[in-house]
């Protein structure tokens, strides 16, 4: 049952990713990316990481991709033209991709010895996850949040320098 579901959703994931590249319309690409995100969430669920799966759907599929589609809709971006790519890209790019994939695959296989992932030996539940996050990994967690805060402040600073008219009374 696990195996069937894994193959099914891994297939969805790959199909979505390939479709993302092949589509000529930005909104179709954005929707394929959502398919990828949701199938990844299902794969997390199969590993017993239900909190991670829910977070993946809420944050990536529900918030970030909404903003993506929002921007595509707002700019009303049209259909893009397919080119066949330059000759350099075809002659160098494809072999390079194959080589890189091969290197990554061998490294992973050597590092882990090709074991099947079990859902018993990892920290997956919401409670254990938050305990680790707020005790052992507190410093990295807080540093990350400061990083995000800096990004927000930067966005606000950039937007307010634009000098656009204020909307509505305070």
């Amino acid at each position, binding site marked *: 049952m696990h195996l069937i579901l894994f193959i099914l959703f891994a297939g969805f994931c790959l199909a979505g990713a390939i479709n993302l590249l092949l589509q000529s319309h930005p909104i179709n690409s954005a*929707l394929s990316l959502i398919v990828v995100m949701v199938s990844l969430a299902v794969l997390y669920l199969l590993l017993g990481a239900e909190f991670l799966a829910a977070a993946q759907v809420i944050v990536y599929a*529900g918030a970030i991709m909404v903003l993506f589609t*929002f921007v595509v809709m707002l700019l009303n971006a049209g259909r893009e033209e397919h080119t066949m790519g330059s000759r350099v890209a075809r002659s160098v790019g494809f072999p390079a991709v194959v080589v890189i994939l091969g290197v990554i695959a061998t490294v992973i296989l050597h590092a882990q010895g090709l074991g099947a992932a079990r859902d018993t030996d990892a920290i997956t539940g*919401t409670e254990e996850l938050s305990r680790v996050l707020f005790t052992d990994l507190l410093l990295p967690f807080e540093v990350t949040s400061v990083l995000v805060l800096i990004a927000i402040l930067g966005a606000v600073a950039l937007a307010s320098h634009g000098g656009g008219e204020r909307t509505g009374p305070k």
Partner: protein
Amino acid sequence: MTILQFILWSLLKVAVVTTVMLLGVAYTVLLERKLVGRIQNRWGPSRVGPFGLLQPLVDGAKSFLKEDMIPTGVYKPLYLLAPILALGCALITIGVVPFGEPSVGPSGMPLFQISDVNIGLLVILGVTSIGVYGIALAGWSSNNKYSLLGALRSSAQLVSYELALGLSLVGVVLRAGSLNLRVIVEQQATQGMLTWNIFGGMQFFAFFIYLMAAFAESNRSPFDLPEAESELVAGYHTEYSSMKFAMFFMAEYANMINVGCVATLLFLGGWTSPFGNLIPPPENTLVHALFPIFWFSAKVFCFLFLYIWVRGTLPRFRYDQLMNFGWRILMPLAILNILGTSLWLAYHGS
């Protein structure tokens, strides 16, 4: 329990719950028309059946029989996908909602809940956030400026208010120490109404924030700017007709019911009696099992009544007021509520 039994029982539960939900949607529409009618000093629908009770069925038949127009300018795949997405997401949510005591039915199958997920609350939030696409894609694929404006308004509104909505629920989760909806209900059910999260749990502000955010999330008045008739014709579903329009309509009312269910579970003690142990539990097994369902439905009904009452009373917000209210008032209030609840819990020691 074999896997075949599990599948059969699950299918049965899904069929029953979906039927009840769709009937609920149909009669919520009637309730709204009746109540808004009374608020405006007229009768509302009264011709079809006694008190207009058959009106929803006739309306449904009418939607089916109407001509299904697909305008030539639309982007067809997404135009057809959008209503399915909207209604699908609205109907999935009920799958994790517990509406009765955790009694065990025949062959070890829990009745009164389709599936007991231990991250039930997050599942509801996740499905709701996917529901945005139904509206966004409908507006975009219609190739109509009113639809597009409605969809843009709607997605901006949903993304903004989802934040306040999620944050307002954190206080409740902190008190229960779990994301499981059953645990959350049982935690507040010990002394009846006195220990409900909204009263005894001191989550009054959280309830207020949730209420406001939920009105905005389901595109209801006073935050119904995505379908403001005076500016946008009908907003994102301007180009839809017949059953496709009806699907958006049903999704809106199903979302109202979902919001009512979540509010009932998180703030109003779920399926438990408001009088706690003052009323002794009934002896008869059947009555004992159905009593919680009565309380649950009664609470959801009160919430829907409030929803419609607000719609009949308040005028529509302006868009900048809506955004200011969400980001400058509700968000900080929600964060303060989390802070206050955490301090209170730390002081009392859980």
